Structures are given as structure tokens and as C-alpha cells.
């Protein structure tokens, strides 16, 4: 099941790219298409941040991951590169778990 999803979504993502370079440019001209395509990544990424940090299965939780996210915000405000942001988030959560075991 996981393999089917991986390959299906993988091939699907390729076809989305191929459609872009193959379709006539006027497809882009529609304002609704452009706006929706701009908004979807924003909403999805924000939702993914929220769920990754504050959810555990179907429960809302507050644990070490929130501290990791706060550290990531600080890193981003300091204009740290991607890898540093990810590392800092992990480090903060790991340290929080040493200080507060079980968090």
C-alpha cells in the first residue's frame, strides 16, 4: 500500500511538471488558476507545520516539538539557511527532552 502511494504520487508529481512544460501558456492566464495555485502551497505548508508540531494522531498536544518550532522561528528571523533551521529545531526539541523527560 505504501509502495503504491509512493509510486502513484511520484508519477503524479512528474505528470504535473510535464503538464506545465507541455500545456499552452494561456492556461496560466486565468486569474483563478493562478491565485489558487499561489494559495494552496501556503495553506498546506501552514497546516503541515501546525499538525506536525501540535498533533499526536488525533489528539492536540503541546510538547518539546513546540520549543523546536519556536527555535526555528528565531533561526528564520536571523535569516539562517534551511539546513540550520531544521537542525536548530531538532536540537531545541532534543534538549527539551533531556531537561523534561517525556515531553
Amino acid at each position, binding site marked *: 500500500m505504501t*509502495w*503504491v*502511494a*509512493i*509510486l502513484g*504520487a*511520484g*508519477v*503524479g*508529481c*512528474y505528470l*504535473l*511538471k*510535464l*503538464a*506545465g*512544460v*507541455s*500545456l499552452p*501558456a494561456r*492556461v*496560466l492566464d486565468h*486569474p*483563478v488558476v493562478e491565485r489558487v*495555485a*499561489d*494559495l*494552496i*502551497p*501556503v*495553506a*498546506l*505548508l*501552514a*497546516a*503541515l*507545520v*501546525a*499538525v*506536525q*508540531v501540535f*498533533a499526536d494522531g*488525533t489528539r*492536540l498536544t503541546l510538547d518539546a516539538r513546540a520549543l523546536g518550532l519556536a*527555535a*526555528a*522561528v528565531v*533561526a*528564520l528571523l536571523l535569516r539562517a*539557511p*534551511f*539546513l540550520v*533551521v*531544521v537542525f536548530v*529545531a*531538532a536540537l*531545541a*526539541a*532534543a534538549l527539551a*527532552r533531556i531537561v523534561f523527560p517525556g515531553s
Partner: protein
Amino acid sequence: MTDPADPADRRSVIRDSLGVGIATGLYGVSFGAVSVAGGLSVLQTCALSLVMFTGASQFAFVGVVAAGGAPVSGALTALMLGTRNTLYGLKLAPLLGFRGWRRPAAAQVVIDESTAMSVTRESQALARAGFVATGLSVFVLWNLFTLVGAVAGNLIGDPRTYGLDAAVGGAFLALLWPRLSDPRNRMIAVCGAAVALGAVPVTAAGVPVLVAGGVALLAGVLTRSASDPTELPGR
């Protein structure tokens, strides 16, 4: 090449592109480690980087599956995030002017970075140089470092000890961050996050993110029917 480019310009474009390629490729390590921590095998992790090859979608797939969501929810989230590459392709196609076998080959490396490094160029030759150098270097290094991260992630034991579960949230935030300079995007981001969290207790894992995607779809369509006079604050 349909137009000549100054060799110095070309070298400078390629040098910048390789820099972006190396920086982006390196964070394949974080994807590899997060993916095996989320329960995928090394082979599945590498297949995602090779076939899907678009970072945000890959992180999304892994994030949903790791949270206990159905693989189908992960796949749908990945596909929704992948739609932005279609838009990139539409913008790039006339600029790059690839024909024949080059077009389907180029399609696989239509991603955030290769688009950013080519859409701003003044000539087709420079646009192609930026696209190819960025696309290929990211592709090779992203896949290589995914393998490194996946193998390393498999060796280190419980990923929570190293805060790897928190790294995923940080990664998504870093991907989202550049888009938050726009006030409308900030509002959509807050709505998306709120809707997703609201859906967490009442839906299966993975579904809340899809619900947020639906909100974005609705917002995009509705702000049109509201038309220009009532454009959102700050446009």
C-alpha cells in the same frame, strides 16, 4: 542556443546555480533521516527522491504517513503541493524553448530552485544555463544525500531522542517562510493552520492537511467572485 551569451555571464550563472544546487542537495540529508524516522524504508525513501523529486511534496508525504495517516492521504497532499510545479512549467516553457526529448527530461527538474535560477535571466541561453545547472546539481545531490540521511537515520536509533520529529515542523516552516512576506498569504497561512488543528480531533490523521488545502481552493475561487473592490487588505 538561439541567442549568444557572454561566456563570463554564463560562467557566473552556472556558478550561482551550483551554489544553490549544493545548498539544496545537502538538505536531502534531513529528508532522508526524517523519512526513515517516519517509518519508511531506505529504498522507499530513495524512491521518493528519485521519482517524486520535489522537496515539499516529499516531506508532506512522509509527514502524513509518520503521523499515522493513510498513504493515500499522504499521496493526495503531495500531489496538491506538486501543482505549483505545473505553474512553474507554464512560465518556464516559452523561456527555455525545449523541444523533443529534452522537454520530458527537463520536466523532472522543474522545481522551486531551478525555476528561481532561470526565470529572471535576460536571454534564453542564460535561462537554460541556470535551469540545467541548478536542476541537475540539485537532482544528483538531493538523491545522494537522501541516501546518506536515510542510512544514517537508520543507524541512530529512536529519532525522538535527536528531536527529528520536531525537525519536520521546522522544515515546513522554512519552506513556508519566504511566502509569508505577503499579507494575504499570512492570513491564508493562519486560516490553514487553524482549520487543520480544528480538524485534528475529528478526522483521521492526514485528513486535516487536505481540509486546509480545500480552504485555500475555496478562498482562491471566492476572492475572485468578490472581485477587485473588495480585494483583501494589503492586496
